[in-house]
């Protein structure tokens, strides 16, 4: 019997449909249907100024908006031959790691609620808000930040941010202990999640699965370590690895990643305290700045004069490896923008980790994948 889990289903965490063929209680076949949230972001980007694409990036993944801003802006800067100042790079890493914690805490809240536990959901949502408060203090937004610009970031951190950040990080470290007590300390949680949704390392590699799912299978692969971008080669942190390849393993990897993110953030705020400086690259072309005044005949000159280029960036997004490809053929708009979404790939291997388990196991398994449909469909 085929049943539809979705498009409106508490398991989906978004808008997609998981068609499941069952025999009794056992899943025999699955068919994920995606595309309900397709907004054509790649195509719209071709009609936007380089900076205006940022507004779309925040809506690509609505729990990790600033990570996607970082991804796009790296590719755009490479295509436009712009080098941002060092302080901007550190602020970007600050944003990305804060976003990683926020995204993982959000995942924790949603995943644990899939298991039927209500209190951890409330704790997770409460603690995520603290990070959103920080984001609001320097970007002005809580979900759609619109913070990064080609050549740097919009504004510097307001005074006192680093001190408040240290306070929050201490507070969060205590909460992580609490999370572990609630989940790993619970026999019910362990019985539910151990040996569930197993995706072995060779399957992960064959399907291109990345992120915490891959690391939970024991594969040492983290772009921040393997191909350090921004300033990740200057901070000290460890890769989070588990070996069980199941739902518990993914939980452990994400929990460890949050602790490592706190470790990175402590180094970043120390650096930012010691190194004041500009956050925007000097001597940017006028048409790359924020007020897009009419260009007049410069529009024609732009196409001829500005050097063309291609930008390719890859970052370790909270869900996995995301890539962006930006083609600059001259002019004010990118000629082509292309994204690789990690969750799209992770979902397409779903039959490997769903078939053979019970129907009641689908919510925890899909919860452990951390689906964000905004970036799947783009």
């Amino acid at each position: 019997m085929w049943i539809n889990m979705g498009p409106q289903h508490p398991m989906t965490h978004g808008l997609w449909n998981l068609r499941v063929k069952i025999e009794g209680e056992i899943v025999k076949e699955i068919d994920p249907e995606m595309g309900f949230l397709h907004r054509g972001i790649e195509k719209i980007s071709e009609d936007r100024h380089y900076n205006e694409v940022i507004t779309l990036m925040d809506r690509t993944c609505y729990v990790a908006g600033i990570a996607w801003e970082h991804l796009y802006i790296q590719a755009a800067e490479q295509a436009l031959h712009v080098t941002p100042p060092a302080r901007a790079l550190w602020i970007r890493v600050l944003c990305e790691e804060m976003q990683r914690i926020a995204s993982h805490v959000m995942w924790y809240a949603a995943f644990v609620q899939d298991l039927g536990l209500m209190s951890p959901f409330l704790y997770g949502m409460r603690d995520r808000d603290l990070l959103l408060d920080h984001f609001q203090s320097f970007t002005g937004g809580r979900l759609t930040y619109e913070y990064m610009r080609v050549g740097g970031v919009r504004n510097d951190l307001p005074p006192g941010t680093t001190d408040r950040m240290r306070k929050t990080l201490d507070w969060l470290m205590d909460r992580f202990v609490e999370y572990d007590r609630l989940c790993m300390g619970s026999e019910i949680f362990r019985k539910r999640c151990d040996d569930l949704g197993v995706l072995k390392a060779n399957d992960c590699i064959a399907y291109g699965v990345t992120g915490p799912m891959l690391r939970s299978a024991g594969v040492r692969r983290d772009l921040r370590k393997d191909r350090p971008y921004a300033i990740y080669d200057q901070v000290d942190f460890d890769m989070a690895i588990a070996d069980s390849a199941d739902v518990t393993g993914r939980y452990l990897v994400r929990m460890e990643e949050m602790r490592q993110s706190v470790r990175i953030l402590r180094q970043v705020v120390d650096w930012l305290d010691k190194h004041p400086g500009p956050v925007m690259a000097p001597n940017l072309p006028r048409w790359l700045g924020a007020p897009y005044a009419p260009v007049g005949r410069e529009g024609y000159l732009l196409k001829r004069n500005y050097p063309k280029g291609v930008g390719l960036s890859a970052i370790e997004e909270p869900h996995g490896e995301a890539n962006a490809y930006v083609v600059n053929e001259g002019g004010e708009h990118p000629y082509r923008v292309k994204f690789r979404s990690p969750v799209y790939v992770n979902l397409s291997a779903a039959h490997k980790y769903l078939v053979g388990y019970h129907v009641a196991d689908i919510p925890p398994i899909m919860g452990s994948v951390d689906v964000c449909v905004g970036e799947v469909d783009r």
Partner: protein
Amino acid sequence: MAASTEPKEGPNAAFLIVKPMATAARQFVKSLVRPSTIVYPFERLEDPSFREEVKVESGHPIGVGPIWDNYRGVHALNIATCISCNLCAFSCPDLCIEMVTVPGGDPKHPKKCPQIDYGKCSYCGFCSDACPEGCLSMTTRYELSTPNRSEMIYSPQKLHEVFERKLPMNPIRLERPENEDAIRLDAPLCIGCNACSRDCPTSCITMVDTPKPTAKPGEKLPRRIWKEPVINDSDCVRCGTCISVCPKECLFWGTHP
């Protein structure tokens, strides 16, 4: 660091269930003192008395305080200082800003101020970044719900009402770069039509007479008014209005003088 899984069967299953229960109980006691949530609409983040009441220790490290002022909410428009330069509408990625006529301008040169459709607005803040006079800025106002879709369109007067409520405004403003590009004139193309000077929102363009050259035998002088625009760079806000109205494309963006 490798986070290895612990043994699956704990030594004392009853104890393992007690652990999460004790954690939840501790949170419950904490919440009796002061809940983590804000009891909206009886408490509001922008309310100064509420800001003082909630202390850092109660689960809000920074959630309240002057930092809240950076929030990008509904715009405030000061009609009196708006110069109708059109930059906000031009920089809007959602095309939700329309310049509409407001009373106060002279009939030949009507004053136009932004009207914002909040059904489309994405609150990106590019318009307030672009505003050269600082008359359009984003406030902490966030209550927008309405049963009527047409009420989502805020006229300049309605945006001015938001301004008059003196809400905290986003204090972080973009600084314009020092060596900003300026508008330059390609003199041989100019026909002296006065369009740029007429439409300049800051009146920084003046038309000055240019000497009419004497025609050589057999040569025909171009048919034009013998005047040329002179741009006062210190007053110019770089809105590009002159460039867009110039019929001969003789004005262009050049390097800083």
